[in-house]
């Protein structure tokens, strides 16, 4: 990647995402009655809180030019461990939640260590991590464990009333806070700067004396932590632990990041764009629900088409790379 051209490229995909989001909102408001209401948009946040948190972590990984396929499984493992500890062992929620968050971070850090230390492909390492986390879920239990713990149910049912007739869940507040911290880490810390530098050119970053290996481990640990936090939010949302929870979430998260304008080659993108991508995925689902005549399977096809459109847009803006060269992710 050419460092000089990065500046000019930074804006277009994000702007395109925002414009498309506005266009979809306008379309929905005109086409369907009752669409343009505060609660519909707040529901977007409530239903996609866990996806937002997971996608923020994924943004950092993709910014370094890597990928994390294990996020969906880590979410499932988190729901499973929380449910098992709270329900079967009767541990307190205040112990369980920090424990699973730390567990997610360690899981991610080990993957990052394998990537950084042995130069393994992130795609493969996290693919194996995905198997491992899913398998561990089934080791705990094959069945779904529903949660009746008072702390969990209280948090799950609590509503933060913003104004008359519009409220959001505690989970979405946590997600927004996590998102804000993510924006700060990406743009206001040395760690964030190193992440962008590695994505631009790992070799140059090494030559500049920046801590490449440490940053990579940190990025995957962050993604693991975000997945675990997403898992905690998902536990609030579903009030159960299940090994089949969040299957395919990794693809949604990657799609959200890409639609949010982050280049898969790394180095270019904004964490704020990811919020846009998550909202867009949620909006597609809402539009299809409002329409009523389209079957739910169309959601996947529309998301696929949108992902394709954004990838092609990215290719058009990436003029400095020779086209048509097969490259491994």
């Amino acid at each position: 990647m050419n460092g000089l051209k990065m500046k000019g490229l930074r804006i277009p995909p994000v702007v395109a995402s925002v414009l498309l989001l506005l266009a979809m909102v306008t379309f929905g408001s005109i086409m369907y009655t009752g669409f343009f209401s505060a609660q519909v948009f707040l529901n977007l946040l409530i239903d996609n809180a866990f996806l937002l948190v997971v996608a923020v972590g994924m943004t950092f990984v993709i910014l370094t030019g890597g990928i994390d396929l294990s996020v969906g499984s880590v979410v499932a493992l988190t729901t499973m461990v929380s449910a098992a500890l709270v329900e079967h062992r009767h541990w307190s929620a205040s112990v369980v939640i920090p424990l699973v968050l730390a567990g997610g971070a360690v899981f991610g850090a080990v993957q990052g260590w394998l990537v950084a230390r042995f130069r393994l492909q992130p795609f493969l390492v996290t693919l194996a991590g995905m198997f491992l986390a899913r398998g561990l879920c089934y080791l705990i239990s094959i069945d779904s464990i529903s949660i009746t713990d008072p702390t969990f149910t209280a948090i799950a049912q609590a509503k933060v009333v913003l104004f008359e007739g519009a409220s959001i869940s505690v989970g979405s507040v946590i997600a927004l806070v996590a998102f804000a911290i993510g924006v700060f880490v990406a743009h206001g810390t040395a760690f964030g700067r190193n992440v962008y530098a590695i994505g631009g050119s790992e070799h140059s970053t090494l030559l500049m004396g920046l801590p490449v290996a440490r940053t990579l481990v940190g990025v995957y640990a962050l993604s693991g932590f975000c997945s675990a936090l997403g898992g905690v939010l998902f536990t609030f949302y579903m009030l159960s632990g299940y090994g089949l929870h969040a299957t395919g979430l990794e693809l949604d998260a990657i799609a959200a990041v890409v639609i949010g304008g982050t280049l898969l080659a790394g180095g270019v993108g904004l964490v704020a764009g990811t919020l846009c991508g998550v909202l867009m995925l949620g909006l597609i689902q809402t539009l299809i629900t409002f329409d009523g005549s389209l079957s739910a399977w169309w959601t996947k096809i529309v998301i696929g088409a949108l992902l394709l459109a954004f990838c092609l847009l990215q290719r058009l803006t990436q003029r400095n790379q020779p086209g048509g060269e097969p490259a491994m992710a």
Partner: protein
Amino acid sequence: MTTAHEMNASPPRPAPQLPPRDSRWVRAGRHPLVWPLVTLALILAVNASLNPGLWHLEWRDGHLYGSLVDIVNRAAPLAIVALGLTLVIATRGIDISVGAVVAISGAVAALMIGGDLKIVDGQAVHISHWPLSVALLAALVAAAACGAWNGLLVARAGLQPIIATLIMMLAGRGAAQLLTGGQIITIYYPPYFVIGNGFFLGVPVAALVALAVWLGMTLLLDRSALGLFIQAIGINPRAARVAGVRARTITICVYAFCGLCAGVAGLIVSSNVKSADGNNAGVLMELDAILAVTVGGTLLTGGRFTLAGTVIGALIIQTLTSTIYAIGVPPEINLVVKAVVVFAVMLLQSPEFRRQVRALAFRGAPR
């Protein structure tokens, strides 16, 4: 094994530059198929110790019966998918949409065959909507078209393979669910079941199909320059193009072929269960296939590939699954075991890791 044999036949060469450690056995040990074969033998040995009937083969009702036949039969769809994927990986690509394509192919075949119960001459006969050959052809064409679309995105639009095929994985799964309406479509047409359940000359048809795909590919790739071209693209796409290899056309064809293979596997799977399931057919199959390819010794960084290794890899995966069932542990552990195998294979393939192990093993001894 060939290596050792050749060295027996050739006259002893003076090879002073080779250190004495590199005996015939050591060099035979470097043959790319040795480790996959050793792994397979080990797993089979573990399986045999738990399941004494493993080696038992029997000729019953004109068919071959036995645990081994079962393993080979079940490994067939995976082997076919993995063979197609091997070529994609050899061009330094990846195809994670094969599972979705398996579902699409099965759904197309199921919809076109259907199977209505009709009374002909007082006998209940199942009639397919379309002729069987047309239905099979349509399913394979749909699968190959999915693959070709992936190839176009990779070779023409220049998308990263994982993203191009991720799009197909998402949209393809949606399309399969749309085709089947999210339901399991049952097929009532006995001739179709031959592909997944039938026997030809006493051998399962599915295994024969896999064998045919393997032999066909081996012939095509070994007897023409195509194999060399694919390797060249994997090692350095730009250099291959400069050298006159039609890299883009070949890449598109390789992805289309991978889709076709997934389509064949989809037919076998849906024929075996006599239905098409848009939601669950082929789910996680892409991961098993990637695993089979890597365990078989094909490098994920492109270039070197081995079809025989991939077939052995598919057998390893299936034997592992059977062994896990034989041990009597819950089948859910399967995923954990697979994860551990992937980690081990990845580390063994990593030059960094090998260098460190060597440094540990030969510490002090200059090399």
